[in-house]
């Protein structure tokens, strides 16, 4: 853990910004560069930054759920996004779209959400144990 008040303070406003960026990348991904993968990586980066400066416990607190569950949720969401197609007799992963006003929502977005959650979980579950016991 790097104990430095400057970094700590910087992070206290940087982390929310980064998380916003991550979510932004996730949501705009379907139309502009970005997407769940890149968003997830940034979210993971936040976890690493928090963990190495303000402690692993703090990082876990930001995550709220254990990384393992993030992964399970992500994989589950990705799998689930394919099921509507399958259940309606079409091929697995056949996209279902519906619009709310001008906003088009569809199962691919759920899939991307799953990717986001999973990548976040993976990054966290790889990094946190490595940071937990300092050599």
């Amino acid at each position, binding site marked *: 853990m790097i104990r430095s008040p400057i970094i700590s303070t910087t992070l206290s406003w940087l982390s929310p910004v980064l998380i916003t960026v991550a979510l932004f990348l996730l949501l705009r991904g379907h139309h502009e560069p970005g997407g769940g993968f890149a968003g997830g990586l940034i979210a993971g980066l936040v976890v690493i930054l928090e963990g190495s400066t303000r402690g692993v416990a703090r990082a876990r607190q930001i995550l709220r759920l254990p990384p393992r569950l993030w992964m399970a949720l992500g994989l589950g969401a990705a799998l689930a996004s394919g099921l509507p197609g399958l259940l309606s007799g079409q091929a697995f992963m056949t996209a279902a779209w519906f619009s709310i006003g001008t906003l088009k929502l*569809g199962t*691919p977005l759920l899939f991307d959400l799953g990717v986001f959650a999973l*990548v976040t979980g993976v990054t966290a579950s790889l990094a946190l144990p490595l940071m937990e016991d300092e050599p």
Partner: protein
Amino acid sequence: MPASLLLAAIALPLCVAPALPALTRRFGWRTSWLAALVAGLSAAFTMAAGLGADWSYQWLPSLGPALALSLDGFGLLMSALIGGIGAAILIYAGGYSRHDPHLGRLLAWLVVFVAAMQALVLADDLLLLFAAWEVTSFASFMLVGHSTHLAEARAAARRALLVTAGGGLCLLGGVVLLADAAGTWRLSELAVMTDHSLYPAIAILFIVAAATKSAQFPFHFWLPGAMCAPTPVSAYLHSATMVKAGIVLLVRMQPSLSGSAWWELPLLIAGGLTIVVAAWRCAVAVDLKALLAGTTLIALGCMTVLAGIATPSAMAALVVFLLAHALYKAAAFMLAGAIDHGAGTRDLRVLAGLRRAMPWSAGLAGVIGLSLLGLAPSASFVAKELLLAVAIESGPLVVILFGLAAISFAFAAVRVCWAPFAGRPSSRAEHAHEVDRASLIAIAMVAIPALALGPLLAAAHAVLEPAVAAAGGTITAYQLGLWHGVSAPLVIGLFAITSGLIAGLLLHRRLRAWLRTPRWWDAAAWHDALWVHLVALAKRLTETMAAGGPRAAAALCLAVTALLVLGVIVTDPERLPLPAWNADASPLDLAALALTLLGAGGCIAARSRMAAVCALGAVGTGVTLIFLAHSAPDLAVTQFLVEVLTVLLVMLAFRRLSDGISDSGSKLIRAGVALSIGATVFVLVLVAQGTQLGQPVGAWHAAAAIPEGHGRNVVNVILVDFRAFDTLGEIAVLAIAAIGAGVLLARHRKLEPAT
């Protein structure tokens, strides 16, 4: 009905066998009577089926082979012998091995063996023949190794299996080639193959197979070794039936394969050498069963020679000799077992004077002795007459060989059937006792027919003729008679018997001294040494392959790749459309190139792990720049983030390790491998620039992204929609990797608690 009877002859023993161990646990040695009944029934079934019966089942229709049975005269004769002698020997086993805790297993495998032999002689399909052949080999392995607690038995069983299974594989090769060449798997449909281009190979493969099974030189050694099996096994497998399988094969193949030097010469040489080598073994044998094994080898050698000659009269002599030999040799082995049990030893040097202690055995020994000697009126006398007549037709060499055989038989007759019972009772004889009634009945069951059949053979000409004919021979009732006047065969035969008697009665000790086997002359040891050397070679090869560990293996993989790519290029360089050199690079491209090269160079030069990781990060950044320069912002963002995260994670992990790079092995080789794989990839990239062979599907993706995928970012639409299934797999990989890493880290912490 006849068809199902044929099938039953095989199926009945096969079905009963698995139950025998349990039955034996319940009913003890009496189970052997049931087993004998089964064997007898199986012979009765074939007899009831009648000549010409056949049955078939399409087992592998796509390839052609079927499970086909058909009954000809020779098959009937063999089937009767297998069932009849089998019944006697199973009864004998019940007596002989009464106190064996594994009697049930013994009986079961013997009965399996009956079934396999029946299948072998009844088979009308090359593949079924082979299948039965393999089962007999394996059953023999289980039976020779029956006394598993004896290291000697285990070694002998292994040797027997390796030799006979090796022959079996030759048979498989021969069968497949023959079926391919002849266009049929049916034995009865085989044409004469001597003109086919594969004929020499086929003939040799079949001959090797027969020689291994019938213990012909140079594979003869496994048979004497197999004598450490319980006596019923020796009597059945290694005298009467299994070793005859090779002869059966030769008889079956003789119509289509005989008639050329490829067939005749190998058989004459193998048979002849076997007779000589085995005669020597007989002369020096001190063990009763070893002596009998020697005479068995000689008999098989004679049959092999006859199969090689393959004239009608030779085949006729072969069939009659086979019949006679099967009967008296089974009896002789059972007698040897009886002596072993009664006197407690099989050592010919100490056996003497048993006639009082074992009167019944002595009487049966007399009966068997006549057959073994080849004296009238035994069936073997008739056989010997026929044999010598063929020999005289075929030339002096064969006369000498068969004469030597006759001398050895007579010698063995004296040593086995006379010497143990005659003379002053030795100390052993005083404690000797008569064997049980079941054993005596069993011996009589085959010994008496062996003797009594002689005068009946001429009368049974009508029965024997089909068997001879099926084997490709001809015979007249006159030839089967006992008396043909004072003929050359008779004179030679009498001379041989006299010599054998003299040798057996007077010279046996001196013979043993004169003919002491030189130490190097032990084919079994040669065989074992062959395997030892083979395994040593294998070890050296294997260790060479594994030397150098993962690093060498990785280098090998890369080198193979480079070689293969080079090979493809070299074999036809014109097929590779290399593009024209395109040198207009933007400044961003050049910057990316410089960064990448710098990173790669830094990675090579790095002296610490951390430095190397940072250098790799630089390479990644270079790649990011290339993506940016070529309008792939998505890839650039992702690549950059992955680089950052990788460097971070690897650094976190490396904090635990010593920060030095081990530097062993030749740098030159490593540089060579690295450069060659680099050059390979370079060529591949060049090639990739060339003309397209098909419409790239990416264009469709770009066109369909908005209307079909509802997104302007084609890359994202591909990732989450068009090819989302790939992404699904990849995120699964990520999750699995994280889980795996978590497990390993947890273990690591448990094993070496962090300080």
